[in-house]
Each structure stands twice: as structure tokens, then as C-alpha cells.
């Protein structure tokens, strides 16, 4: 694997290889000395052109545990307002000696542009681009689900996929790179994916995505999913532009205490205890109730820990890329 740009073009074998490598990394993360020499002497640049503390520190921890030298480059606002083009920025990083560029960018497609531009030779890892893709988030979600599934069956998760699982993704699908990346990846790994959202927050053409679509969260929950992934509602979507009010959103698409209790009591397709996922940060009381946010079946913190393992796996694979493979 030369770059990681999106999950749409990530095949089953590659996805499984990343998850399996992440299992090995997770074992390292459980040791007292959480360090591997895999990337000693290599330089990883975290180029974050959009605010994101969580993803950046996750990548930073991942690179450091693989013994890479890490450079953090953060800048807010567009390259235009900053006065320097992306081309100049990344060529500067290349001159410093970046072997991999982990990029968070406000523009959809920026990671693919960088990978295909010929501006740099570095491996490119997409850490979120506009409203397009966030592949490591989807991978860590899949990793989390796979561990839960294997755990419930009492088997080792390595080599397994998500066949039989039903996952509901709820909320702002239109603007969510997390949703886009998850729909394709979870489908590739064999899960049955359902998206539930108000019609205004579903993109045109969602009917052609590899998932089912419903406007009713209650209908989706009645199908006894194994996981409910609640997306964050952005403040700028409120105020009547996409739905009438926060209260109405919560009533129809929020994981309220009542819905959470129902989810818990019904059980899932393959998991006795369905899980609640959230890419964070959560809006308590809006898309998720306190009970669901604090439940042991909420995987938010597990997702964060798994994120480091997944990002170690991705960095290891792109920087030890065998062009012959």
C-alpha cells in the first residue's frame, strides 16, 4: 500500500491486512514498553490544515510508538488566506525530509490531489479531507466492531470480518466524511449497513451507496442492529437550515434514553449487547443521551485506543510498502 486515501477503493484483502496488522500493534500497546523500531530514522509529518486535536495526537502517538521522528505542522484557514499554496507547503516538508505526510485538510479530494500531483514522493495518509473521507476513522471503527464480534464468539479476531453484523449510522450523512468512509469499509467487510437521517442530511444519490437508507431511526432500531454509530450534529446545521430545531432532531434522530433502553433490551443480530459508537466529540443531550454516552456499551474510549493501533498499522504499511507486492 503506497498511500491511504479513501475506503471506496480499499479492497477486502487490504482492509483485512490493515486490521490484522493493527492487532499486532494493539499487543504492543498493551506492553509496558510501548515501542517498536519499525520506523526508526523515518520522518512522519502531521500536516493539519484544519483543527483536530484528537486525530493529530492519535497519529502522533502512533508514529512515535513506531520510533519515527514526528513533525507537527498545523495551520488554520485556507492556503489562499495563508498566502502559501499547498504545493509550496508540501514541497517544503519534502525538503525537510518527510517520508510520510499525514494530512487533515478542509478541501475534499486534497489527499488524492497530493498523492497524484507529483509534488512530493512521500506516502500520503488521509486524516480527513473536507466532507469526503476519513479512512483511519472507519478502520478503527471496523477494528472495534471486529473485536466485539470475535469476543462474543470467543475467537481470535485476526483474519475475521464483519459478516452478519448490522450497523446503523445516524445523522448528518451529507457532510460526514466519517459516514462516507464507514459505509464503504463496513460493506466491504461484510456488514449490513443502514443509514438513518432526515432527508435534508442525505446526499443526492445516496440510493446508489452500498447501504440501505431510512428516514426513521425507530425503524432502523427495530431491525435489531449490533451497533449504532451516532454522528456529531454540527452547530452550523441548526437554526432551521437543515431541520427545524435541535429539539425536533433529538426527538426523531437522537439516541434518547428510551431508544437506548430499547436497543439494549432487544439485543443485536450477532451481539447480545449492541454497542453505541461515536467518532467524538459528543453533543450530550442532542444526538446522544447521557445514559448512552456513559454506558459500558459505548465504545467511544475503546475507539480512541484502537485508533492508535490502526494508525500504527497504516503508517507501518505505507512506509514499508513493497512495490512488488
Amino acid at each position, binding site marked *: 500500500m503506497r498511500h491511504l486515501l479513501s475506503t471506496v477503493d480499499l479492497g477486502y484483502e487490504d482492509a483485512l491486512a490493515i486490521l490484522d496488522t493493527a492487532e499486532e500493534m494493539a499487543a504492543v500497546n498493551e506492553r509496558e514498553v510501548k515501542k517498536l523500531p519499525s520506523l526508526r530514522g523515518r520522518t512522519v509529518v502531521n500536516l493539519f490544515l484544519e483543527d483536530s486535536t484528537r486525530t493529530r495526537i492519535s497519529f502522533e502517538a502512533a508514529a512515535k510508538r513506531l520510533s519515527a521522528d514526528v513533525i507537527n505542522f498545523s495551520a488554520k484557514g485556507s492556503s489562499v488566506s495563508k498566502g502559501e499554496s499547498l504545493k509550496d507547503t508540501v514541497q517544503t516538508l519534502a525538503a525537510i525530509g518527510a517520508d510520510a505526510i499525514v494530512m487533515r485538510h478542509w478541501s475534499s479530494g486534497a489527499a488524492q490531489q497530493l498523492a497524484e500531483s507529483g509534488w512530493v514522493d512521500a506516502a500520503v495518509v488521509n486524516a480527513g479531507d473536507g466532507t*469526503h473521507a476519513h479512512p483511519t476513522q472507519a478502520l478503527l471503527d471496523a477494528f472495534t466492531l471486529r473485536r466485539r464480534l470475535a469476543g462474543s464468539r470467543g475467537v481470535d479476531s485476526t483474519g475475521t470480518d464483519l459478516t452478519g453484523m448490522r450497523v446503523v449510522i445516524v445523522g448528518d450523512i451529507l457532510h460526514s466524511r466519517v459516514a462516507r468512509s464507514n459505509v464503504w469499509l463496513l460493506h466491504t467487510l461484510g456488514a449490513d449497513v443502514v443509514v438513518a437521517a432526515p432527508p435534508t442530511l442525505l446526499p443526492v444519490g445516496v440510493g446508489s451507496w452500498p447501504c440501505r437508507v431510512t428516514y426513521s431511526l425507530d425503524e432502523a432500531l427495530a431491525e435489531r442492529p449490533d451497533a449504532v454509530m451516532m454522528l456529531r450534529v454540527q452547530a452550523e446545521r441548526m437554526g432551521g437550515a437543515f431541520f427545524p430545531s435541535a429539539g425536533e432532531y433529538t426527538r426523531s434522530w437522537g439516541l434518547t434514553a428510551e431508544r437506548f433502553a430499547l436497543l439494549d433490551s432487544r439485543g443485536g443480530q450477532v451481539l447480545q449487547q449492541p454497542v453505541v459508537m461515536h467518532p467524538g466529540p459528543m453533543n450530550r443531550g442532542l444526538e446522544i443521551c447521557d445514559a448512552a454516552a456513559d454506558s459500558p456499551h459505548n465504545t467511544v474510549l475503546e475507539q480512541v485506543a484502537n485508533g492508535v493501533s490502526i494508525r500504527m498499522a497504516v503508517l507501518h504499511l505505507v512506509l514499508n510498502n513493497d512495490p512488488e507486492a
Partner: protein
Amino acid sequence: MTATTTDAPVLLRGATLPNGGSADVLVADGRVAAVDSCAADQSRDVETIDCAGLVLLPGLVDLHTHLRQPGKEDAETVETGTRAAAMGGFTSVHAMANSTPTADTAGVVEQVWRLGRASGWCDVHPVGAVTVGLAGQSLADLGAMADSQAKVRMFSDDGMCVHDAVLMRRALEYVKAFGGFVAQHAQEPTLTAGAQMNESELSGVLGLAGWPAVAEEAIIARDVLLAQHVESRLHICHVSTAGSVEIIRWAKERGIDVTAEVTPHHLLLTEELVRSYNPVFKVNPPLRRDEDVHALRAALADGTIDTVGTDHAPHTAETKQCEWTVAAMGMTGLETALPVVQEAMVETGLMDWAGVARVMSATPARIAGLEDQGNVEEDGTPVVGSVANLLLWDPAVRCVVDPATHTTKSRNSPYEGRELPGRTVHTFYRGRRVVADGVLAEPFRHAPVEEAR
């Protein structure tokens, strides 16, 4: 207009006429002096150009060109843009008003007109802005621009839509005073806020904000009804959707005085190219679906769409070599327009060369009211006695497009690496061979402008 120098007569021997026949054409005193098989006999002593295998077309007329001067001379100037026009076979271009300052006063349109005259590669007709600063708030100096030396008759806020219905109505009414017309950039602004590409299944997957077809179609529907109501003349710039074609067809059937243009790129390219996130494919209106491309071709062939406008939109490298969402919108087009039309319309059997002469010269000249352009018979044969604005086109060659070799100052051609048919061999502008054997020659020299008192 008179030339300060008169070129010696030349005989175009054995050119293929758009009707498929062959003829010798004598160009003398800046005019088409004779078109027949025995012109040669009348003029044994004149210079002869072997035109075997070359199609003789009227010089092309573009109703939609961005020459970028004044204001963005790093992307294009009147001089470089009209050189590109001549290389593309154009003898007349209409310079859109979105310059800096905006072409919304007599002073700016006269400046552009003078620069065109000084360049001498083709006629330059400035388009006047409809509203001050293209801001859509109040009418620009329409009458002053019409009365200026530039004699503006075409008004457009191109780049911006005249979205206010009352303002559009008033503009359509006002230009009737001097036989003008309004060319609308049909884009409902609230439906397209932040739009990046055609709204479709693909935009959803790529995570790019969509530009829905309805935003174009709703404005066209409104404006044809307004044009009918106030009995004025409307032109629709760069029609890009199958739905727009249906509305225009309906309007024409009702006798509404509407004309429409399509760009070369909308006749050939589709939104699939956006998958690359390469901003060279970012344009407004955006590249649409394959169904739209085919509807636009059919509409151009059956006359629902009247003309091809290049929407030649040169941009500097730095505004294209950047993130998709902040990249400039637009593509160069003057030098690839006829190759694309040959590929999309002629080689598909949808249109013959007489049709090409109609949609790329005679009809746009009629729309803009140009006396010296597009003077051909129904079958595309040049009218004897008309000003010699002519193009000799070699349809047999095929070339891989290399923007680095283009004459325009900018390199943002979406056809880079694509093989396209045809090549300009000679362009005659007012009798002067401004392109000779595929290379720029000498420009035409206009008589000095009489200073306004």
C-alpha cells in the same frame, strides 16, 4: 472599416465548400471577390494558395470570451486572447464584462474595443455588464455603452446571474431602446451556494457540494417567461443540462425570442472527470452527466441551441494548481473549440460543415447583429462581396492537445493529452491572412479611430 493597407489579391484554389463541393475563391480588396470554378481564369497573376483538402468556413464568431483585460493581464490580454482566437479560426469575439474594473461604463468598453482594434487579430466586441459591478443591485450604464464607440448590444453579468426578477425584467425592457439583448448566466444563487460540481450520485461520493441542474433550469424558465411578457430578446449562456434544453425548446415553440449557446466542453466532457479532483476540470456551470452531453449535441443539431460559445476562461497556474474547492472555475477554449465540435458533432454524423458554419459563425453573427461576419449562403458558401472573414480548416489531421503549445497566455485546457481532430491552416480577417500555414502572421491594421468630440 477600412484598412490602412490593402493586401494583394489571393486565390484560394480548390477549397472544399461546406456543402461538399469544391471551388476557387478570390479574395481581393478585403472582400470575397469571386466564388466559382473559374475564378482562377480571371486572376492568373494573383498569388495562389493550394487549398485542396481544406474546408472553407466563414470566420468563427464567439459570443462568449473572457479576455481578462483590464485587471487580470497575468492570465490573458486582449492581444494574447485575440491571437489565440485567430489561431482557433475566430474572426470575432465578444469579451465578457467581468474584468477589473467591470465593463459597466462606456469608458471601460471603449478601452477594450480600442485594444481589440489595436491588436488586429479579430473583431473584439465588448459585452456590457447588466448591473453595476455585476452586483445584481442596479442597472449599469446600458445606454451609454450602447452609444459608445464600442456600440455594445450584448449585455451580460456572466459569471454572475441576474437573479433578481424585477431587475432582469427591467434590463430586458431597457435594452429594447437600442436593439440590445441580455445574455443570462442562469444560476440560481441560493441553490448553488458553495457549489463545486454537478449535483449527482458522484458529488455525494466525492463529498463536493452539488450544483443542481434545477438551479439553471429554474432561471431559464423564469427568464423565457419574462422575455415573452416584455417582448424582448434573451440569450442563454452556456446551457448545460438536458432539462434546460427542454425548456428552451418549449419557449421557441411558443415563439419566445430566445437564443441559446452551448460550450464545446459541455459537448464532450462529463462529470466523471471530477473523480481526479484535478481543478482543470472545474468549470461553471459544471461538467454534467453523459445524458446531458447527448441532449446538448442533439439540441445543437436540431437548432434548439443556436450557437457554440467557447466560454474561453484563461486562468493562471496558481489558481488551478491548488485544492479543488478554492480553484478558479473555467477552461481555455478558443484554440480547441472547432476540434471539439468536429469530434462531438461532425464525426458523430450529427452535423455537416454547413451546420458548423451556421452554429459557429452565421447564427452568432446574426444574434449579435454583426454585418461583416458570418456572411454565408444557406449551404455555407461565402457570399460574394462580403468582407473576407474566412477560415481554411484541415479536418484530416489529428493532434494530441498540448496546452504548452497554445497561443493563449494560460494553460488550463481540459483536453491535455487528448487527441482531437482538425487544425486551422489559414485565417483571413478582413482580407488579411492573420494565420498562414498554421502560424500567426501579420495582424490587420485598422484605420485610426476618430476621436470623439
